[in-house]
């Protein structure tokens, strides 16, 4: 059965069958040929996979991200951060990275962060004399922090397929996200010093206070969302809903740069995308049900543990596998399909599922920045109107920094686990 499933899987995927449908078709064929379980079970599995309240956090975060991207929250946020750090060497670049970190803490989406911050920051950086490639590379890479710093849509997906606490995963993402952000800030300052890029004027205290007042509503959002989750005021799904309500309220009644008539149109695109993501999740969970019923994860665990004796080597192999797979398929789908396959192996090696989840999310981040499926690269192309070659050229040096951070997070579990251990366990 395993051979038929593997061949069917590879053939349909290579032929370009949409992944969600491919997973459903393979499950149906395997049930028809090798099992006495009726096909009706596929319908029940699809229903059961989607029958979860946590799942609604995904469309809500996508909606919130798209409302904030179209509105003025990002603009006010950038103005405030720029007034704080814009005057240090490489200050404008540093503001770009910090704005991405901040936007990441309210949006949960990498591409949304690139659109929101990139459309304002990249032209500003180029105008200030930064190399075009550097500016595009920096913001495209920093934007990918959107999925590492909580809230994060891929983290919710991972939690659903691996049965891990969303609150723990969110907390585990904070330090790795800040580590990557800090590395990008240091790199920017070093580059700015070497190339002697223009330094902005130091703003007056009154200017800082003015931009702070204007950006107050944007700055308050991560406090409301993350504070609400960790203080127990609301669940992650409710937090996502609150961020939609908050973004709507701020954009419609405070900043007033969005009109009520535009809202259904803004929601239309993001709702279709979120539904496709949820449908993929349902397909992946149905396929995982088949794998578990056939004891395939246990077989994989036995095989891996026979050949790889150390958990560290296993993690390295997983990183390599995902980096290679990222060249052939979208990394979110790869993680959704692969993670449950290794569940038994992870338990055998005593690897913490939250730590593994963060490693997976960093791999997704890497996948978002490498062709041919690097979504952030394409979004950045759309924002800047540049060719793929220019965007990839800009991102390439920063991938080395990301790779170092990935290895550090992989081999120092405490970077991810320190905060959950201190506050949640």
């Amino acid at each position, binding site marked *: 059965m395993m051979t038929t499933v593997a061949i069917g899987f590879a053939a349909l995927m290579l032929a370009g069958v949409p992944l969600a449908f491919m997973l459903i078709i393979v499950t149906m064929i395997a049930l028809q040929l090798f099992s006495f379980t009726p096909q009706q079970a596929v319908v029940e599995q*699809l229903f059961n996979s989607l029958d979860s309240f946590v*799942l609604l956090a995904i469309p*809500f975060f996508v909606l919130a991200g798209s409302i904030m991207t179209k509105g003025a929250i990002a603009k006010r946020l950038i103005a405030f951060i720029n007034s704080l750090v814009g005057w240090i060497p490489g200050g404008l670049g540093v503001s770009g990275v910090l704005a991405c970190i901040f936007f990441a803490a309210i949006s949960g989406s990498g591409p949304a962060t690139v659109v929101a911050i990139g459309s304002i920051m990249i032209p500003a950086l180029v105008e200030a004399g930064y190399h075009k490639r550097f500016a595009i590379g920096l913001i495209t890479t920093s934007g990918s922090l959107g*999925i590492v710093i909580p809230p994060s849509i891929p983290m919710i997906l991972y939690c659903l397929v691996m049965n891990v606490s969303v609150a723990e995963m969110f907390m585990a993402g904070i330090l790795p996200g800040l580590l990557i952000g800090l590395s990008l800030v240091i790199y920017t300052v070093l580059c700015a010093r070497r190339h002697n890029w223009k330094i902005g004027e130091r703003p007056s205290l009154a200017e800082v206070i003015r931009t702070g007042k204007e950006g107050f509503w944007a700055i308050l959002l991560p406090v409301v969302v993350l504070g609400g989750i960790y203080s127990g005021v609301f669940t992650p799904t409710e937090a996502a*809903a609150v961020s939609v309500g908050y973004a709507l309220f701020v954009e419609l009644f405070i900043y007033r740069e969005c009109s009520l008539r535009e809202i*259904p149109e803004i*929601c239309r695109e993001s*709702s279709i995308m979120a539904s496709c993501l949820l449908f993929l999740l349902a397909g992946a969970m149905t396929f995982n049900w088949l794998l578990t019923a056939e004891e395939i994860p246990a077989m994989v665990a036995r095989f891996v543990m026979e050949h790889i004796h150390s958990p560290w080597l296993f993690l390295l192999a997983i990183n390599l596998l995902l980096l290679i797979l990222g060249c052939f398929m979208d990394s979110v789908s790869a993680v959704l399909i692969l993670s449950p396959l290794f569940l038994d192996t992870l338990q055998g090696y005593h690897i913490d599922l939250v730590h593994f989840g963060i490693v997976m999310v960093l791999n997704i981040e890497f996948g978002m920045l490498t062709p041919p499926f690097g979504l952030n690269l394409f979004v950045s192309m759309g924002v800047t109107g540049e060719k793929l070659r220019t965007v990839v050229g800009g991102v390439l040096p920063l991938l080395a920094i990301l790779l170092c951070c990935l290895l550090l997070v992989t081999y120092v579990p405490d970077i991810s686990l320190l905060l959950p251990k201190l506050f949640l366990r």
Partner: protein
Amino acid sequence: MKRLFGLLGRIEELTLSLTFLGLALVAVIQVFCRYALDISFTWFEEAGRYVGIFATFLGASLGVKYATHFSMDLLISSAKPRVRRALHCGIGLLCGCAMLDLAFYGFRLVVRNYNFGNTSAAMQMPMYIAYLPIPFFALIMALRFYRIAWSALRGRLQTPKADCGGQLS
């Protein structure tokens, strides 16, 4: 006929956007009521789950229309036009048949739930209603896939609608 389909399409899209937006706003009202008025909507979690399933299948069907489902199109996009058309046709037929199969078994499940008279725990809603979106939208997806196959056969290829991209994760 074209205008009717256009109108139905608009209604479909508006329903999807307003469903997710409406769910989010009800969730916000629920949080407010819980803390400010000490009232809890016991039905909301269950309703949210079932409405979420409805919206997912509705959106997945629109995803077929706009080609926004994630796929590995490296090979297909570099293939010669004739091969690409054949692949599109094959994918349309295969996925169409799979969705027709899903619609058939989904319908059987709906009928079974209807006969058993199962109801949900909190709202006491008949469970067949919760299952209904699966066969209904699977059927619509099947029809949309067959349309893709037919278009490919006639030489027209479906390309992703640009404005629906760029929001994933």
